[in-house]
């Protein structure tokens, strides 16, 4: 068992749920409300130092009684230790969690993928939109258990919608509005943008 579990219990008490060991990996269940605090503590405490977020994913089990789990795989590069954090959510309830992008920038696309496939909203994510399916995809969240394998629409409707899509539409509405605003910018700023200068990224600290 990973020594971080004891330290977590000592620091956060009841926010830490059960901890199990599976195939040599330690899995800790934590309270969704305490997620940002626990994650920040795991990253910033020198004895823990989990500086690398390997993956964020989610699981919904076939057993309807079991909650939907969001899984965070953490690794401490310096200590060469892994820790898996799980958060349980009620599939019928409010699927909202705090984003960990302010802690690990790499969570950006991972959380977008979880949002795309499971419909879990991450509060505080800088750019939460679909990443695998296209922006206008209206059939729902494909990896949820209540999603039919072949999608909700008929094949003809799927083909029609796919063919109606614009292959050049790689950009989000935000990016498109910026592109539209380009012509209205003063000439010196246009020149700076043309040279490749970019604004400060919103979530950089």
């Amino acid at each position: 068992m990973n020594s971080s579990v004891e330290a977590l219990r000592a620091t956060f008490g009841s926010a830490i749920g059960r901890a199990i060991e599976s195939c040599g990996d330690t899995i800790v269940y934590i309270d969704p409300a305490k997620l940002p605090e626990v994650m920040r503590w795991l990253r910033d405490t020198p004895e823990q130092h989990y500086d690398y977020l390997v993956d964020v994913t989610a699981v919904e089990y076939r057993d309807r009684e079991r909650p939907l789990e969001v899984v965070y795989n953490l690794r401490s590069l310096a200590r060469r230790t892994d820790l898996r954090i799980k958060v349980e959510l009620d599939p019928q309830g409010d699927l909202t969690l705090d984003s960990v992008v302010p802690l690990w920038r790499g969570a950006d696309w991972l959380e977008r993928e979880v949002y795309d496939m499971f419909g879990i909203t991450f509060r505080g994510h800088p750019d939460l939109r679909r990443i695998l399916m296209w922006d206008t995809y209206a059939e729902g969240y494909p990896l949820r258990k209540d999603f039919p394998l072949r999608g909700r629409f008929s094949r003809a409707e799927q083909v029609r919608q796919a063919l109606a899509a614009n292959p050049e539409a790689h950009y989000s509405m935000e990016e498109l509005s910026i592109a539209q605003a380009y012509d209205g910018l003063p000439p010196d700023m246009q020149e700076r943008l043309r040279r490749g200068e970019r604004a400060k990224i919103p979530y950089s600290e």
Partner: protein
Amino acid sequence: MKRVLETKEVAGQSPNYLLAKVQDLIDWAVNSSRANSLWPMPFGTACCAIEFMATAASRYDFARFGMERQAFSPRQADVLICAGRLPFKLAPVIRRIYDQMPQPKWVISMGACASSGGIFDNYAMVQGIDTIVPVDVYVPGCPPRPEGLLYGVLLLHKKIKGESLFDRAPRREEQPLDERGLRLPPEQINEISEPFGNSIHQFRSA
């Protein structure tokens, strides 16, 4: 072609005999040059593309059949080879590539996934690229061996050599029939696609 054949049936008596001969000669010249210098546009999305590369490489070498020059621009291609599964996200892309190719143009659907969706009967995958673009030759296999693709190319040669400049019937419709994006009436699609479908609840057209 049909008209030419009908004219030839009464050869000897008909004044059209000579004309038919001239048409045949023109068709032969045009079709031979088209069939024997196909410029393929590879659209490789999956493992079939690996077999496609093997077909293009020295051991199997489809340059022997006139496909010397691979056109990676649709504007200079006349046969589109879709090698691999096609997700709905790529459907408008392959449609645009097909629309950008100049006439005359042909399409080879390589592999089970491109032809029918294969094992991917799910929300993300096009169930056969013939719902997006018209297909001339289906090459079965998962993935097909290079011999299979070469056989498909030879079948396409045969098909091209059977076409006629003077027959307007097989000329492709550039625009889909209706707002559903189908190029054929739905009954006809269901009839011809029945053996391909791997879902018993859904027809290709609906």
